[in-house]
């Protein structure tokens, strides 16, 4: 973990349903285990990581300590807008009045990239040293539980999209600053999460291409989640296919075939993301995700030399 954790912002990316929040929570637990102050950021009003770690959703933009040294914040667009107006463009109008104006809301919806820009702008503010928002703490690492791949590309592209439309004014200027920060590999790292399935692997490879081509960002680490243990040899699989019609044999056939398909996809993932390292997390057979699992995953993620 040492390689990735020197960065101030880790973006945890991937297709919907592959376990991004689990990985984000595990990275945060791993980081605080090493004595770092970490904050997990969720967007669009979500609080999955907070729930995973046994906390309730808090007010948007409230930085809540879930564990010693482990914080969580949910970014919601409206709160981000109000905060932006308050701290970045002071003296305009009462920020709350402006943010609540229906016209202003409609404007934020209509202006290309504005809504995403407010979100990524808040992430950017979280990694500032010192912070722009008064009376806030500084974090060693900010872990963004990013939206699904397509939206993430929109989020990262927002500063540029917006700057192309509004060429002047404080927002355009700030968009340029945010853009430069996001493209700095010393500051920002990307952790891509995939399950070893065709669509999830394809999406990871597509994400890698768009990140490289559009932003010059490389994947730092790839986490393959829900990997079945390698248990049956091809000889076993052959014996099973000729074995009795028994529910247990059917379970084993499913396991062997799924495992084989997973290995093919894992190989494809490894080939496709080189030189980024692929680290694996095991398939879980229990319902729901327990805190203990997050801690176990934190150990597994930390054990890899990356």
């Amino acid at each position, binding site marked *: 973990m040492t390689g990735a954790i020197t960065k101030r912002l880790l973006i945890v990316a991937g297709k919907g349903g592959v376990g991004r929040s689990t990985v984000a929570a595990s990275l945060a637990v791993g980081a605080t285990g090493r004595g770092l102050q970490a904050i997990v950021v969720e967007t669009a009003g979500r609080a999955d990581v907070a729930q995973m770690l046994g906390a309730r959703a808090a007010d948007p933009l409230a930085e809540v300590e879930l564990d010693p040294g482990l914080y969580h914040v949910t970014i919601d667009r409206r709160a981000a807008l109000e905060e932006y107006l308050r701290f970045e463009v002071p003296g305009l109008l009462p920020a709350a009045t402006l943010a609540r104006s229906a016209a202003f809301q409609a404007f934020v919806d209509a202006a290309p990239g504005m809504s995403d820009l407010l979100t990524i702008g808040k992430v950017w503010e979280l990694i500032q040293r010192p912070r722009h928002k008064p009376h806030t703490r500084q974090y060693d690492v900010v872990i963004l539980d990013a939206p699904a791949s397509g939206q993430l590309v929109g989020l990262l592209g927002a500063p540029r999209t917006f700057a192309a439309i509004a*060429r002047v004014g*404080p927002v355009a200027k700030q968009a340029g600053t945010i853009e430069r920060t996001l493209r700095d590999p010393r500051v920002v790292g990307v952790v891509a999460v995939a399950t070893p399935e065709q669509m999830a692997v394809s999406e990871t490879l597509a994400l890698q291409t768009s990140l490289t081509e559009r932003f010059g960002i490389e994947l730092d680490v790839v986490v393959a989640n829900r990997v079945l243990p390698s*248990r049956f040899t091809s000889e076993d699989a052959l014996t099973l296919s000729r074995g009795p019609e028994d529910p*247990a044999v059917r379970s084993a056939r499913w396991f062997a075939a799924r495992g084989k398909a997973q290995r093919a996809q894992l190989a494809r993932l490894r080939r496709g993301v080189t030189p980024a390292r692929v680290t694996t997390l095991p398939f879980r057979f229990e319902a729901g995700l327990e805190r203990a699992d997050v801690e176990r995953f934190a150990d597994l993620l930390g054990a890899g030399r990356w």
Partner: protein
Amino acid sequence: MVSRLTPALSDRRVVICAGAGGVGKTTVSAAVALGLAVHGRRVALVTIDPARRLAEALGLDALDNHPQPVDLARLRESGIGASGELFAMMLDSKRTFDELIELLAPDPRTKEQILANPIYGHISTAVAGSQEYTAIAKLFEIEHEQEYDVIVLDTPPSRHAIDFLEAPDRLTAFLEGRALRALLRPSGHAMRAAGMVFAALRRITGVELLDDLTTLFRLLAGMLDGFRRRADDVHALLGDPDTAFLVITSPERSAVDEAVYFADELDRAGLHRGGVIVNRVHPLDRAPHDAATVAARLHDPLGPRLADKVAETHVEVQRLARRDARAVDRLRRAFGEDPICVPDRDADVHDIGSLIDLQHDLFTRRSNGSSIR
């Protein structure tokens, strides 16, 4: 042959497949469409973003924004006679929106100006709900042509199934743009407040953006009645008794939460449910299946080493099966009907052969009785 889905979907003219993202909605909707074709209907399938191999299997071409015939020769090779026909298309959201503007614009010049406006480009692709809006617009357009017996619509991947129902109204309201119009062309007492907000915006973003916005909403003004009429027609179509919402879920807790919530919302909105499909279910073994019993039973046919591994595997898989059975029970209570369970495949579904197998599970095979009881 008694079809499990047929009673729920026979005579329906529109089947909308809804559910949380990541549950296999696109694949299941393709199988539903195929199954309806097998059962003699002329079917149009509108998919959103299929995996490349599924798209290839269906002969989908991204360049076409209208249903194209799917070659069902593979069906006949598998000994399944399809008495119906299948047509499929992949939704091109931007193009569908452009087509709508083309249809509603009062004259070619307005159309060209709207399509060239930078803000319009953003609204048609990136504003929340634009994909849902165009999916429904496309559905409406195909239904209007009356070329098919039934249209199966896959819905855009979103975190919440309910987004699909809410997005069109939100987008219509946005296009009507009351708030923005008040800002850009204020009148009466709104003038002072609007003037302040306008001045603030100008300072933050510069004047060009506001100019583009003003231009776009001026151009759209003549089309508002068209948008509203469209929205009313769409509401009528969604609420029609011939339209069924098929809820698709996986046994995962969050997906089931979503399905239950969506069913409530459908009922509240007076929309018609067509059943619930649970994808990727692990079959439950009702006989004793502790590792020792299973290993002893399989000792002879498999040998001790493999029997032990199989027993260990079965115990693990049954943990998944119990989770799945609880999910199925919960859905049964929430929907007041038996969910249709689709067993977890040992590989991804991405060719016509595996789609045939999947539609067979949906329409023909009896439920494996996955239930905790």
